[in-house]
């Protein structure tokens, strides 16, 4: 959910899109339009037949206008009827007490009749340590403890006390409770490429989602590592264990696609990803095990002088380079479907998340992209894994006939 009106000279004259992005660049009256456009787009995607719609959490961020994804999700819960609501998610360590997340997610699950996917990211350094002042040396432990507390709050029928290292609550007893209580809403974990996160997802039976802005080529190594680890842990190869994010632009012709998606993509990779590197590496955020793996990789590469590592340039800002590096996939519906089938197969990913609005893309273009995708691409991918695998990580809503239908919003209808 980007702010779509960052100035053209943003990259040159502003230090960062995140943490200290200047308030003078934010016009609340324009943001009124943006929020409503984005919510229109998400509702439209649900109407078009997408399986789910996603929202996420960022703070002090010029490309993510959702400090609270739960606010947006609750509105979507009322204005959509069947799509899963994927809140991707709540950065658990930022909520005090974390039972707030258990409560709000339960509310969304109740309002939507059991359509919630509960996402629990650790959160980026920019969001958690700088914008929210969390101690990077304690962030992961806080996160894990908050996770345990939320899970217990969902599952434990009796009022209980929680005496944690970071959270002490004498009386935990959340009202409401989630509709999906057998045993809890599906949990998806967005993460980087850390082995510890993969192992934890495997242990907890959660979906691991690699949400990179750099597309399938850059994602290959990470997903390969993920599946090797699953194999090592003796987990099955159910592709629905894994989620992956890809930017997509569909049009009737290749030329039109190029024309339509060039500017939004360049806006995103040029302006939205202009993050001051000072905010990238708070000490302690990266675990020593991950650091060690990284350094050992470098050391062994230097030692063997092996230069065959797959090189994806993560600094592309011109559209041709953006396309070459695979950040964005564009084309006709058949071209995009073919490419995405290949991507899903190669990365072995069942939960494919698409960014169909990015950068300063207008609502009209986003809806055109969404419609073409839903009508012509989605059907070609929808069942690609279903002969062999069950998606065990999908919401189980109340039966259609049991779910409330919001009253039409006119005075006559209300009377």
């Amino acid at each position, binding site marked *: 959910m980007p702010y779509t009106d960052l100035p053209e000279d943003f990259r040159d004259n502003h230090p960062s899109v995140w943490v200290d992005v200047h308030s003078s660049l934010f016009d609340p009256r324009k943001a009124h339009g943006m929020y409503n456009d984005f919510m229109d787009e998400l509702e439209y995607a649900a109407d078009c037949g997408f399986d789910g719609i996603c929202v996420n959490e960022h703070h002090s961020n010029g490309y993510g206008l959702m400090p609270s994804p739960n606010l947006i999700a609750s509105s979507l819960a009322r204005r959509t009827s069947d799509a899963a609501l994927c809140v991707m998610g709540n950065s658990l360590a930022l909520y005090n007490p974390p039972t707030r997340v258990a409560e709000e997610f339960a509310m969304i699950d109740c309002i939507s009749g059991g359509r919630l996917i509960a996402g629990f990211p650790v959160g980026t350094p920019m969001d958690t340590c700088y914008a929210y002042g969390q101690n990077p040396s304690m962030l992961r432990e806080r996160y894990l403890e908050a996770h345990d507390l939320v899970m217990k709050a969902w599952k434990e029928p009796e009022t209980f006390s929680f005496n944690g290292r970071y959270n002490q609550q004498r009386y935990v007893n959340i009202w409401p409770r989630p509709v999906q209580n057998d045993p809890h809403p599906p949990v998806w974990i967005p993460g980087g490429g850390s082995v510890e996160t993969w192992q934890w997802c495997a242990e907890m039976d959660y979906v691991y989602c690699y949400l990179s802005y750099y597309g399938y080529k850059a994602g290959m190594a990470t997903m390969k590592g993920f599946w090797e680890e699953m194999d090592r842990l003796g987990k099955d190869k159910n592709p629905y264990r894994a989620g992956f994010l890809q930017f997509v632009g569909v049009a009737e012709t290749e030329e039109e696609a190029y024309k339509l998606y060039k500017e939004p993509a360049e806006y995103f990779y040029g302006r939205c990803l202009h993050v001051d590197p000072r905010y990238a590496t708070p000490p302690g955020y990266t675990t020593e095990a991950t650091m060690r793996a990284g*350094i050992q990789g470098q050391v062994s590469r230097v030692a063997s002088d092996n230069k065959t590592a797959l090189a994806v340039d993560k600094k592309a800002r011109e559209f041709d380079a953006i396309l070459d590096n695979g950040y964005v996939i564009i084309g006709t519906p058949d071209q995009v479907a073919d490419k995405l089938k290949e991507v899903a197969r190669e990365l072995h990913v069942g939960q494919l998340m698409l960014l169909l609005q990015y950068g300063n893309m207008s609502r009209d273009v986003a809806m055109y992209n969404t419609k073409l995708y839903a009508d012509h691409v989605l059907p070609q991918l929808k069942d690609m894994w279903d002969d062999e695998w069950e998606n065990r990580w999908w919401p189980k809503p109340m039966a259609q006939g049991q779910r409330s239908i919001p009253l039409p919003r006119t005075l006559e209808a209300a009377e």
Partner: protein
Amino acid sequence: MSELETSKVGVNGHECRVWRKGTGPSIGYLAGLAGLPKWPLFADALAKEHQVIAPSVPGFPGAEGHRELDTTLDWIVAMRELLNGADLEGPPLVGVSIGATLAAEVAAMWPHKVEKLVLVAPFGIYDEAEPTESPWAQQGQEFAGLFCNNADAYSDFIRRPNDADPVEWPIEMARAREASARLLWPMGDTRIARRLHRIICPTLIIWGADDRVIPRSYAKKFAEAISGPTELVEIANAGHLVDLDQPEALAEEVLRFLR
């Protein structure tokens, strides 16, 4: 001068290295943000008149265990155990940067167990009107120039010796940054201002004239709050880590104060 001696002290089940050098009355030395990856020139200069005892603080080179410490109280108690184990229950303490913060915290908690105190640019206070610079929101290559006037002094201090492990050495340096963040994140305010009045021993407060991390005016804030007699000294051509920038000049001031 005697050779460098190494021993260990257990704190919360983790071993902390204690280095000793020199003869004469004992003094404790608590190093700055990088800890003690090496025995520094400054400590050598002090060792001309003292037995310098330099315990490694949990999380800094030579010691682990910072992840056991959640609150400022946890840190202070860990420091008490470390100092006791290193025979530093009573002798003067010389601290630099975060080491000075810990020395001051200990002196405020147990005022009768620190004979004299030297605080070189301590963290612990944050004044919104004159904010400190963040030692963590920096790019790698910027640290050295921010911490020291002579960036090479810092870079050389943390540079891996040829015989050190190429994987573990950089992790140890990163761990020191994590340990300092664990105590001081997000702005270095340990609320020590509420406790400084409890410090009753003679205290020398030293600041680098070119400190770019903590404004020099903070020296006065510490001096005014401490109950014991205080003396303020500024060292020319020194940044935040005065012990690395001006080891000789700093040692001269400290030795004079301790005589």
